[in-house]
């Protein structure tokens, strides 16, 4: 089976689109949680293909975008400590903190290295025994297990110079925070695909039940999204609120037990700061006490100034689904992918970047 072209077949898409048009009678707003979904929706012009009854809003599912300035400032302060090597996924480099970005810190001499996995970070730590090597633990449940595994490996190998700055975030509490706030009316959720590969379908069941909202877990190809939308429409029309999986090739109801076990061994839930959503209880992951010696925040002396938010930037509202990038006075003017003001313009999965790259009014 071809895993990409099979899920982009135009004749199947056409069938799903006409089915959605036939079946959708009730006005409904659906939120796609994940930035990856937003990109697919724009790249394939899916919003244009949907009937007038349906409205899609983008959610906070871009890990770079939801990283709060307090955390970014910590990262930049860390990079300025002598003999510290920062290892990070590339997306983090350009994200503006309160006063500067990691890219600017790097240009001023900080040792910042882009890696593609925690294995690379461990390798750098082994090769530089006289340096403190910090991996920036950013991301959702998708990346947390591999970071947990790197800590287990470092412990097993007796490494004393490898640290993690734990900034991981959990998706279900963020969705609950959005639904609790009541700022955005939603009739359906497209739940994140890769996150659900790890956590499975069960954590979404209480969301569907408590808020009486249909939830469909989707993959990232256009046919996945169209299938998810058509399943949401069917539930809306029947006034149901269940969890369904439109991504069977990736997601099992129970998730990935081994990944969950490793994550639970190393991390425990704790409060986390979300850009736009503020502090949410039990929405982050902190290192359990027996792994605290790997915690960069405890091991290294990080000194930060009080955070500042950029004037006029609507990233927070956009992440909550309250505003669209087109509402932002900075969008496309002072804030562009080359000179981003807010994080939603930086990440390839940020809403602002998707609107900018794929032509907001036409694509939307």
């Amino acid at each position, binding site marked *: 089976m*071809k895993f*990409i*072209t099979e899920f*982009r077949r*135009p004749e199947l*898409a*056409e069938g799903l*689109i006409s089915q959605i048009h036939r079946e959708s009678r009730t006005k409904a707003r659906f939120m796609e949680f994940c*930035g*990856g979904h937003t990109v697919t929706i*724009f*790249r*394939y*012009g*899916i919003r*244009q*293909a949907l009937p007038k009854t349906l409205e899609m809003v983008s959610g906070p599912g*871009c*890990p*770079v975008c939801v990283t709060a300035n307090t955390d970014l400032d910590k990262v930049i302060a860390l990079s300025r400590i002598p003999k510290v090597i920062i290892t990070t*996924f*590339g*997306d*983090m*480099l*350009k994200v503006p903190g309160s006063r500067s970005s990691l890219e600017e810190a790097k240009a001023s001499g900080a040792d910042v290295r*882009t*890696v*593609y*996995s925690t294995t*690379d970070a461990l390798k750098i730590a082994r090769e530089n025994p006289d340096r403190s090597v910090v991996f920036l633990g*950013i*991301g*959702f449940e*998708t*990346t947390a297990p591999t970071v947990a595994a790197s800590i287990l490996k470092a412990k097993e190998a007796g490494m004393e110079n490898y640290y993690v700055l734990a900034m991981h975030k959990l998706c279900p509490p963020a969705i609950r925070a959005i639904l609790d706030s009541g700022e955005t009316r939603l009739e359906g959720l497209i739940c994140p695909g*890769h996150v659900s590969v790890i956590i499975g379908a069960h954590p979404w069941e209480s969301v569907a039940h408590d808020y009486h909202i249909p939830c469909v877990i989707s993959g990232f190809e*256009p046919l996945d999204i169209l299938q998810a939308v058509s399943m949401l429409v069917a539930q809306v029309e029947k006034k149901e609120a269940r969890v369904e999986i439109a991504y069977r090739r990736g997601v099992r109801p129970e998730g990935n037990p081994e990944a969950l076990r490793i994550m639970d061994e190393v991390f425990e839930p704790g409060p986390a700061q979300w850009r736009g959503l503020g502090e949410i209880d039990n929405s982050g992951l902190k290192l359990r006490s027996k792994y605290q010696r790997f915690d960069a925040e405890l091991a290294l002396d990080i000194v930060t100034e009080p955070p500042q938010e950029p004037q006029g930037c609507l990233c927070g509202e956009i992440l909550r689904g309250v505003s669209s990038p087109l509402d932002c006075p900075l969008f496309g003017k002072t804030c*562009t*992918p*080359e000179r981003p003001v807010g994080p939603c313009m930086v*990440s*390839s*999965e940020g809403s602002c970047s998707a609107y*900018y*790259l*794929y*032509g907001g009014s*036409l*694509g939307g």
Partner: protein
Amino acid sequence: MEDKILLAHGSGGRLAHQLITEGFVRALNNPRLAKLDDSAVFDLKGNLAFTTDSYVISPIFFPGGDIGNLAVCGTVNDLAMSGAKPLYLSLSFIIEEGLPQSDLNRIVASIQKSAREAEVEIVTGDTKVVNRGSADKLFINTAGIGIIPDVVDISGSNARPGDKVILSGTIGDHGIAVLSQREGLSFTTRLESDCAPLANMVAEMLSVSSNIHCLRDPTRGGLATTLNELAAQSNVGIRIEEDKIPVREEVIGACEMLGLDPIYIANEGKLVAIVPAEDAESILDIMRSNRYGAKTAIIGEATTEHLGRVVMKTSLGTSRIIDMLVGDPLPRIC
């Protein structure tokens, strides 16, 4: 111990002389270079095209090519995109001390091979060696001169509504092949760079139509950036169809994994032609018969709508705007 390039190789003294005569002149073998005068002298009449480019690629060897054949093909292709027949190239090396002599030999051999295929002569050159850290292994600059046939008028501002947009083959091969070799990106692929000299194909195209409006090679910034440049320069809209753009499975796969879009990935052996509709089929046929154009396709046309912008019909039948590449494509993390 392996022979390395030393600072003395760029000093103008005995070692430098030895490197030039034995390393370069013998390998690149042509009478104008062999004279070793301060400048190459030749007699040319007609419309001349002149271009230059510097090559700083890392790594210097990559699947399907190296910095040497890239430096020849890149400049040859820039000349060809004006419709010129490339004739003479200059070749300047900036070498970081410590480069293995064997690497340099391999690159010079590859330069010679590409120059022979492209039917150009390297007629003048220069070598500098800099301290370790002042350059990354090897930088090359080439400049080239070519001659443009009288009837030819090719420019980025010549596209007209109704013209067809032709692409000479699969996109993204070069960028993904190079990216796959970068440190830390542990994916393997059989993909090779498409690096190739296109002057012969252009000459064949001109033999069936002297009315080609625009030619451009979609290098950095990829197909999307090239089409945007042409739409803006000619003040036409360009409408393309996603399904018509040839892309290899491996490129699609790698792009998915890294969160990239093939239309923004660099090519080194492809061209985009904008031609009058009535000439499109004959140009298409002759391009397909060339070894570098087997997968040539008509991917769209120029229109009077959305002037200066590029719009793509997606495989789902919807439309989206294709913008220029902004910033560097970053790998995704989730």
